[in-house]
């Protein structure tokens, strides 16, 4: 059948697709440029002088030298710090978010309603305010700034993501599922481990990946709550960029973008499976 869209509609569609195209160009062109310039032979980041792997090699050398204790690299060290902080944040967020989501699902008394709203404040509050208030808090309780303070800060805005994912999955839960496990001889603990945990796993993993990425590239809150030895990669990169655009920055950023994109894609794929297996069972 021939399309019978009125011409007015066609114009609207044309304008809409044009607009969407522009937005995407605007969003992704800088990223594409950054990736392209990471292969630029020039020392000056914005003049193209030919294709090279040089900066990747340099990054690799710094990495191996640092690991072999030959030459200490502040950049690689900050990378390591970021990974440690992100891993710890993810672990804690998973525990806190899963337990929280489960409790909120299980016991629905009024006070918990308020709590469940409060939990989302760290997700939406401006980061600068989060940073300052956490700093004031750590100073008040006389906690030394360092890994612990950064991790605690990251957990406050990461675990809600796990909690939301777990809660969404639990909303589709057949309440008889746990009873069926107990009916078949599982103690409550075994029922949780053998039935609830596998059921929640897709949500937990997607929440964990989210936490990891969020923690990896967090700048502002970290800026306020870090200690002298807990410099993270984003802070290091920010410091380097202030001094001048360095081709190594493009390289690191590209590695970062690829890593983050992969994690996000994994999270999305898992969300897809979660949705599919939630259909009546």
């Amino acid at each position, binding site marked *: 059948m021939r399309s019978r869209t009125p011409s007015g509609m066609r114009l609207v569609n044309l304008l809409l697709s044009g607009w969407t195209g522009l937005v995407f160009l605007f969003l992704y062109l800088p990223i594409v440029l950054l990736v392209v310039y990471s292969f630029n032979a020039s020392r000056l980041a914005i003049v193209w002088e030919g294709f090279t792997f040089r900066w990747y090699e340099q990054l690799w050398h710094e990495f191996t030298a640092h690991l072999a204790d030959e030459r200490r690299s502040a950049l690689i060290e900050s990378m390591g710090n970021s990974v440690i902080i992100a891993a710890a944040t993810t672990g804690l967020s998973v525990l806190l978010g899963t337990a929280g989501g489960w409790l909120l699902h299980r016991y629905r008394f009024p006070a918990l309603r308020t709590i469940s709203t409060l939990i989302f404040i760290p997700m939406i509050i401006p980061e600068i305010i989060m940073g300052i208030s956490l700093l004031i808090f750590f100073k008040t309780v006389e906690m030394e700034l360092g890994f612990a303070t950064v991790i605690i800060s990251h957990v406050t805005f990461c675990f809600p993501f796990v909690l939301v994912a777990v809660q969404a999955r639990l909303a589709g839960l057949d309440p008889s599922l746990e009873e*069926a496990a107990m*009916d078949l001889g599982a103690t409550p603990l075994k029922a949780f481990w053998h039935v609830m945990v596998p059921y929640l796993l897709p949500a937990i993993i997607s929440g964990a990946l989210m936490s990891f990425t969020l923690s990896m590239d967090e700048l502002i809150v970290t800026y306020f709550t870090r200690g002298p030895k807990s410099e993270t990669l984003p802070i290091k990169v920010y410091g380097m960029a202030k001094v001048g655009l360095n081709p190594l920055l493009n390289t690191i950023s590209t590695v970062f973008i690829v890593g983050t994109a992969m994690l996000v894609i994994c999270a999305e794929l898992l969300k897809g499976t979660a949705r599919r297996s939630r259909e009546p*069972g």
Partner: protein
Amino acid sequence: MDVMVELKRVTKRFSGTTAVNEVDLTIRAGEFITLLGPSGCGKTTLLRMISGFETPSEGTVLLEGKDVTYEPPYRRDVNQVFQSYALFPHMTVQENIAFGLKMKKVGRAEMDERVRSAIAMVSLAGMEARKPTQLSGGQRQRVALARAIVCRPKVLLLDEPLSALDAKLRHSMQVELKQLQKKLGITFVFVTHDQEEALTMSDRIAVINKGKIEQLGDADAIYHRPKTTFVANFIGQANILHASVVAREARQARVELEGGLTLTTSEELPEGAERVLVSIRPEKVWIEKERGEGDNWFEATIEDELFQGPTDQLRLKTDGGLTLSALVANESSRRTPVHAGDRVWCHLHHDDIVFVHED
């Protein structure tokens, strides 16, 4: 006769409502007993006290003579088939069925053997590796059944297990379930609100109303000798009529219905009763063109005729003004073709006039 489950004056109260009210029930080993009643009458609650998911507010639950009132579900030799099936979505058919044996730490070889035979028993061979989402409703139902029977429970509890299936599948599953129960010899406690299902499947039926057992008996007794108006109305249809006793003899009584209609009954009269209620099934009202032999004949006019497929429902009015409904078989060459407006002779057998209590 071995006793399998015994409920002694069991009561369950939830904030505000009494879901189960002082129920006494003895379930025999190997029988197929059905709990039948309208929605909200307490069937599920009663079942959940046998499985251990609810603790009675009062009373005791005995399993093979042992008090299990406060035992948790995972320590009772009882398994349940849930209405929603409650299959574990992340496990395959095989894993679902093996779950109970895994929890009981049954050895690998024995587990495989028992799972295989359970799968064969519910005809699911070839589907072991599928996930529940890849099964039809009827197949999920079978997995739920296999998952429970593989544990060889002493009692299998089934909470409206067929209500999610379409009529045809429902019928074939009814037959299958009944055969399976006979073969395994496991005690089945079956919950339904479908009276037809209860009548075809059960050895005994407990009719429940408002948390109490109104009547307990086999299908025949429940259908032909209802004890209360509730049972008479809930299972099949019934004409419930007021009557007064006019004469008592050795094994007979004469009662007078509204409009001066006098009938002879053969059922034992409640002691000293003057005013009674009688229940008459519409299909037990015999319709003829001419008066036949014996007593309990009366004339009536057909006021209304309702075509119902295999039967015709007639509304009869006696000369005294009593209204009665009757069912007649709808054959093509009917013995006595009758139509609205016809004058007919009606007959009732002594045994088909049943005394009932008001509930």
